[in-house]
């Protein structure tokens, strides 16, 4: 029987090794798998490349992972926010690398990685500093940049519900990068608020087919990042 449920957050992230590339879902706190990230802090893998739209806020979740010195490089579109101080400090100190990618290009590169497409062309970024070093090519009288598909060793994802096959549904705008990251990672690890019996998610409404998911762990009441930041919490 296929059963992708795992027993603990610790076992879910146990095999993430030093130097791994990790996609982390979320747009700000919406969809950020904060408990999985904290488990990765406990686990301690270092020299990570993290692909995520933002860089976290306060001293919890992704910001805490960065603050803990575990991240060597960020690939993201917007490494700034009101309460984001950790990344800017380390970046200015030259202690973390940054590959800045426009948000839509980041999304499409991840989707391409998951879809077996090594490269594609987009008009985004043409004529800007982000075009430097990229191949420029004309199609039908317009210039486009060639962008490469992006894959990762692991994905850490937050979803609303899963069944034992790993089929996923999401909640509102917490969906954001999750479905494409599930596709683009070698091993996809998902925290869900609940597990439902196979067949109880209508086949018409599954957002992420189970084939893209490797491990599912229940976190029934996930913490809310903005609340932890307001309380000035610090992990660990």
């Amino acid at each position, binding site marked *: 029987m296929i059963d992708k449920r795992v027993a603990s957050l610790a076992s879910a992230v146990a095999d993430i090794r030093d130097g791994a590339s990790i996609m982390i879902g979320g747009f700000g706190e919406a969809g950020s798998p904060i408990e999985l990230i904290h488990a990765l802090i406990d686990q301690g893998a270092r020299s990570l490349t993290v692909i995520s*739209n933002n860089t976290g806020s306060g001293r919890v979740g992704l910001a805490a992972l960065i603050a803990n010195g575990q991240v060597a490089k960020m690939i993201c579109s917007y490494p700034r926010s009101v309460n984001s101080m950790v990344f800017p400090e380390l970046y200015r100190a030259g202690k973390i690398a940054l590959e800045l990618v426009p948000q*839509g290009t980041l999304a499409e590169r*991840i989707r391409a990685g998951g879809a077996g497409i090594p490269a594609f062309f987009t008009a985004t*970024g043409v004529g800007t500093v982000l075009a430097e070093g990229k191949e420029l090519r004309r199609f039908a009288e317009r210039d486009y940049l060639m962008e490469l598909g992006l894959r990762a060793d692991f994905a850490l994802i937050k979803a609303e519900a899963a069944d034992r096959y790993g089929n996923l549904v999401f909640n509102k705008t917490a*969906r954001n990068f999750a479905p494409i990251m599930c596709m683009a990672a070698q091993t996809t690890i998902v925290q869900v608020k609940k597990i439902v019996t196979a067949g109880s998610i209508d086949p018409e409404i599954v957002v992420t087919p189970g084939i893209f998911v490797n491990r599912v762990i229940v976190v029934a009441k996930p913490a809310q990042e903005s609340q932890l930041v307001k309380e000035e919490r610090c992990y660990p």
Partner: protein
Amino acid sequence: MKTKTLGWSREEMASLVAADIPDGAYVNLGIGIPELVTQFVRPGSEVIFQTENGLLGMGPSPCAGLEDAELVNAGKKAVTAIPGACYFHHADSFAMIRGGHIDICVLGAMQVSAEGDLANWSTGEPDAIPAVGGAMDLVAGVKNIFVVTEHTTKTGEPKIVSKCTYPLTAKAVVDRIYTNLATIEVTSRGLVVTQLAPGVSFDYVQDKTGAVLIPGPQVAAGGES
């Protein structure tokens, strides 16, 4: 600063933008003054707002206490969804944007050039943390780009310039500019002033602008107003 009180208010600027949005349009709004546009949709017309983090049919801010941390806009502020809305993932959202399906994007600017080049993501200062978000995708993909901005910076420097000095967001993408002083169309002839704020003369606007302006048919050239 005189410019603070002269000309249109932020709300008036948003309302001028809203008056130019056709019934049934799909619109993406940036952060700041663009967010005010939702309040001025013309009576009898229906406009669908997209937010690039995965929602088509964005509604107004929720009442206090009813915020949902998993229902936010691109500025990460709590929003609502209208009946008939839908959620989708980021690749689908930017397929919508890049594929030219959004009619209008309304966004702020640091600089706009006479050719419609836009700079709105980075000052290019050495210690600035580079952060682009979805700006480059939006201006490259959306059919019509409306910039809404104060006419000058807080220190009185022109934001409408012959050539941008800040790093570009994209070349030749801006269609219209709405400032507190005037509305301006970016055309192949150059920047055409289509409307002046009350009490503002063409010469005054030209004086506050770093590029040559052309008076439109409804606008009197010169210093009177």
